[in-house]
């Protein structure tokens, strides 16, 4: 099916209500009725009796020793209930907490502050205003230290040592990590006709969900039970970590992630504010709400990227790509707080070989500390596949420029061929399935590529700057096989429970959590497809550790690949059991029954059947069941993925650049995605639309910038610019379908594809328009203008 999207007016819905799909298809979201009425339940909507409010005092300096903290004036504020400092937490053994990368992070600074915006003290007061007022009354004396801001100087001899809290540390080096075969790669480079080298920075950006991070902590002193409503993408992982860190028994912790106003990786980590709110509730015996403001969100919570990449690509003169080599300097900020599977300190960056059939590849990544906020894996990045795709897709365009070849043709020539799947790339990945040339061809057709090139030539004649950019990406998502992938030792497998009630309605309990992805709808559709129970009869429960089985949460596009698989498996278990019960009902051997969506019928006698609803009632009734078969109709499973899944796509961007100002207008954007089996095409398209806007934002507008003293220059939406409806075009989507062979329903995940794949297409288009080989994102008018005029560096 082809669904080319033209700009408005949108076509009317394809399916009439009476044809509503019991299973996959375009289904209205079950979540929407509450959201359109303003009846969502976000963390900041929670009001509890006696609830107090917390606020954080943050460091104004990027690097300084704390000489003294005077909290007396704050404490005497009439509405203040508690003032917590690093010293308070030290007494509780909580001044430092582990990060998701096995480093430590200060909850509240005790010795030094290490980035501007770092948490120094926490005030608990009767209301929000009083808490903020009292924060202003705390007097901290700092002794400023030289900061390390430019990662390229972090390893200089004599550079200030940021993490002197770590015994014996004399530098800012975190790790070196390599993938691929260096000797083989070097050998291929030595004999290649053409080698192109390019330095590029994927700048620090921020996921900036519209809802900031926050929580309500409620410690019941009598029951000894902590309930924590939190903006988290991983409630179960958080519960376990709180248990391990704070020594609270895990069964006495309930983490609830209610409706979440966007996550994009920003809400994976545990932030100091959460811990302070918990401590505040323990100290005061009252519930404590803490919700950060926008500046706090942009300045202190998980940023993304900040990869300085030195790329090299080797090819034959006729354009066959032979090898790729990358050296990366990774700026991790003041604490190594990146969130990725333990064995992979650079995430999945080593999929930088992309979608091409090459002979050899090697990368080295060096992580360093700087005096900036911690984080690094966020913003729909699929564990750094974003950086990898940007690198390879820019390098291919640089090569095309060097060879004077058309970038689409160069890609077509080098794409993996369908018969090469499953494909083992040169850095250790096994790509599950793909038909790349078909997808690229489709994108070129939808875009009218040849016509665009003709138009471009004509416009050039008139002095107009039009550019066409192509990118082709392969993602690796759905982490992951537990033998290889864990976060802080927790294997990345996910549980699922399905219970069919006596009347044939169902409840599905899933381990992952939605931040807008529509899980309540798609997961009901997965079960509906397997069992024939209408989706509206299936309640999907998520985001509450007391109500759902354990699992690692929603990020890295893992919900459908991992938890979606679990939902299908658990539904099939129920179906298998329903067959035995149907056999008992019909007094026939189960083998003599065949399944037709929603019922078992007697082979050769299709009029003789039992629906899943009838079977559910019988399972709870008095029917005599075969030996060894328990009553009721339910099942549980834990899904351990055998491999990751590999969604891919071809993107084409058309831009016009104003020759006078350097301003870029994205005129068109064509995206052809292949995410395997499509559960709800409407939701898939929505996910792609959002990711494409992210890509335009990153390519043209977004950067978390710092001055040389480490002052964050992007601490508000006046400075950290996000695209509005005026900066993005009417997206044009199409798709191909190549199911994953190892996934129970063949679905690959789509949440991050567009964010990962689109920035390179936009940058490639701008470079194509201005005839420059490379300029770093964000391509603001100033930067584009400078690039056009041979300048290096640019105003931010």
């Amino acid at each position, binding site marked *: 099916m082809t669904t080319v*999207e033209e700009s*408005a*007016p*949108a076509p009317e*819905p394809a*399916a*009439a*209500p009476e*044809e509503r*799909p019991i299973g996959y*298809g*375009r*289904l*209205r*979201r079950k979540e*929407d009725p*509450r*959201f*359109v*009425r*303003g009846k*969502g339940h*976000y963390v*900041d*909507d929670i*009001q509890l009796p006696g609830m107090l409010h917390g606020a954080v005092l943050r460091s104004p300096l990027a690097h300084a020793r704390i000489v003294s903290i005077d909290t007396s004036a704050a404490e005497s504020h009439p509405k203040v209930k508690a003032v917590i400092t690093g010293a308070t937490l030290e007494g509780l053994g909580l001044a430092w907490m582990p990060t998701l990368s096995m480093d430590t992070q200060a909850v509240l600074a005790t010795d030094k502050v290490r980035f501007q915006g770092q948490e120094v003290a926490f005030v608990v007061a009767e209301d*929000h*205003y009083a808490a903020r007022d009292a924060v202003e009354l705390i007097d901290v004396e700092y002794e400023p230290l030289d900061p390390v801001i430019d990662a390229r100087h972090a390893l200089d001899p004599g550079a200030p040592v940021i993490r002197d809290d770590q015994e014996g540390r004399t530098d800012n080096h975190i790790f070196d990590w390599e993938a691929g075969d260096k000797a083989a790669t070097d050998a291929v480079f030595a004999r290649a006709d053409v080698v192109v080298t390019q330095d590029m920075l994927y700048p620090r950006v921020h996921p900036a*969900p*519209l*809802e900031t991070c926050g929580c309500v902590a409620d410690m019941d002193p009598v029951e000894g039970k902590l309930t924590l409503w939190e903006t988290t993408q991983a409630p179960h992982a958080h519960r376990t970590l709180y248990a391990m860190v704070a020594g609270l028994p895990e069964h006495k912790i309930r983490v609830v992630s209610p*409706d979440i*106003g*966007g996550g*994009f990786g920003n809400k994976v980590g545990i932030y100091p504010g959460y811990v302070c709110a918990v401590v505040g509730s323990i100290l005061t015996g009252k519930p404590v709400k803490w919700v950060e*403001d*926008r500046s706090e969100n942009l300045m202190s919570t998980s940023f993304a990227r900040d990869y300085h990449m030195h790329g090299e690509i080797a090819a034959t003169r006729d354009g066959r790509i032979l090898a790729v080599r990358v050296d990366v300097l990774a700026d991790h900020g003041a604490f190594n707080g990146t969130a990725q599977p333990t064995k992979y300190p650079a995430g999945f960056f080593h999929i930088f070989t992309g979608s091409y059939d090459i002979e050899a590849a090697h990368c080295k990544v060096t992580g360093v500390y700087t005096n900036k906020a911690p984080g690094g894996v966020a913003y729909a990045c699929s564990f750094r596949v974003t950086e990898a795709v940007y690198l390879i897709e820019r390098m291919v365009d640089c090569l095309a420029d060097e060879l004077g070849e058309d970038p689409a043709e160069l890609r077509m020539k080098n794409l993996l061929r369908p018969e090469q799947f499953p494909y083992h790339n040169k850095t250790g990945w096994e790509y599950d399935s793909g038909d790349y040339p078909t997808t690229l061809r489709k994108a070129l057709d939808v875009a009218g590529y040849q016509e665009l090139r003709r138009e471009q030539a004509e416009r050039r004649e008139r002095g107009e700057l039009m550019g066409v950019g192509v990118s082709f990406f392969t993602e690796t998502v759905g982490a992951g096989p537990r033998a290889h992938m864990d976060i802080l030792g927790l294997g990345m497998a996910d549980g699922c429970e399905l219970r069919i009630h006596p009347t044939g309605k169902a409840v599905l309990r899933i381990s992952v959590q939605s931040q*807008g*992805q529509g899980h309540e709808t798609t997961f*009901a559709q997965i079960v509906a497809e397997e069992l024939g129970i209408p*989706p*509206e009869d299936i309640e999907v429960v998520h985001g509450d550790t007391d109500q759902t089985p354990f699992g690692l949460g929603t990020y890295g596009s893992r919900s459908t690949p991992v938890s979606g698989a679990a939902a299908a498996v658990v539904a099939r278990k129920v179906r298998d059991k329903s067959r035995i019960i149907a056999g008992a009902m019909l007094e026939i051997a189960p083998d003599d029954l065949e399944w037709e969506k929603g019922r078992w019928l007697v082979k050769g006698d299709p009029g003789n059947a039992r629906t899943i609803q009838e079977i559910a009632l019988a399972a709870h009734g008095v029917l005599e069941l075969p030996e060894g078969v328990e009553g009721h109709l339910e099942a549980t499973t834990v899904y351990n993925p055998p491999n990751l899944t590999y969604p891919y796509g071809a993107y084409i961007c058309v831009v016009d650049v104003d020759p006078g100002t350097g301003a870029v207008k994205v005129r068109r954007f064509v995206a052809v995605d292949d995410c395997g089996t499509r559960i709800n095409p*409407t939701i898939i398209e*929505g*996910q*792609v639309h*959002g*990711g494409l*806007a*992210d890509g335009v934002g990153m390519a043209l507008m977004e950067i978390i910038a710092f001055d040389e003293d480490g002052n964050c220059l992007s601490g*508000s*939406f*006046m400075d950290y610019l*996000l695209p*509005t*409806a*005026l900066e*993005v075009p*009417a*997206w044009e989507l199409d798709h191909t379908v190549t199911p994953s062979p190892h996934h129970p329903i063949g679905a690959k995940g789509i949440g991050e594809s567009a964010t990962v794949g689109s920035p390179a297409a936009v940058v490639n288009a701008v470079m194509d328009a201005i005839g420059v080989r490379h300029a770093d994102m964000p391509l603001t008018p100033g930067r584009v203008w400078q690039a056009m005029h041979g300048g290096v560096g640019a105003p931010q």
Partner: protein
Amino acid sequence: MQVTINVNGEDRSADVEARHLLVRFLRDDLGLTGTHWGCDTSNCGTCVVLMDGEPVKSCTVLAAMAAGHEVRTVEGLEGPDGLDPVQQGFIEKHGLQCGFCTPGMMMTARALLDRNPDPSEDEIREAISGQLCRCTGYLNIVRAVQWAAQHPAEAEQAPAQTAGSAA
């Protein structure tokens, strides 16, 4: 200070600090949490409500400034006959994902359609350009507003019955 604001057709009074923002008055004092906030700088528009029919950012209006005015929030969109066409349009066209920007977007859309029942795509984009959405890439919001423009009288049946049915 004592303020009285007509909110969704009802006079609501409270004793507030002079610095109290309208968004906090609505959320904290009246429990109308459908109006959100997402920034400190008047940039995001998740807080948009209608004041005397005009969209305003309620984070940039003091409760005291709204005294004596008529404020309409997302909770006041649904009528006795069902959802406002704008609400139905957002459901029909998948104009929302996380739902955080949605109330503000819908209030702006309502105001737009009240003064311009048949807006062009450009006019819709212009109208919502002071607001951010991080999830949808805006196209389906535009389509949602167009749907509402095309179905002015159809307050439709409540989506409690249509949720989970084919889009």
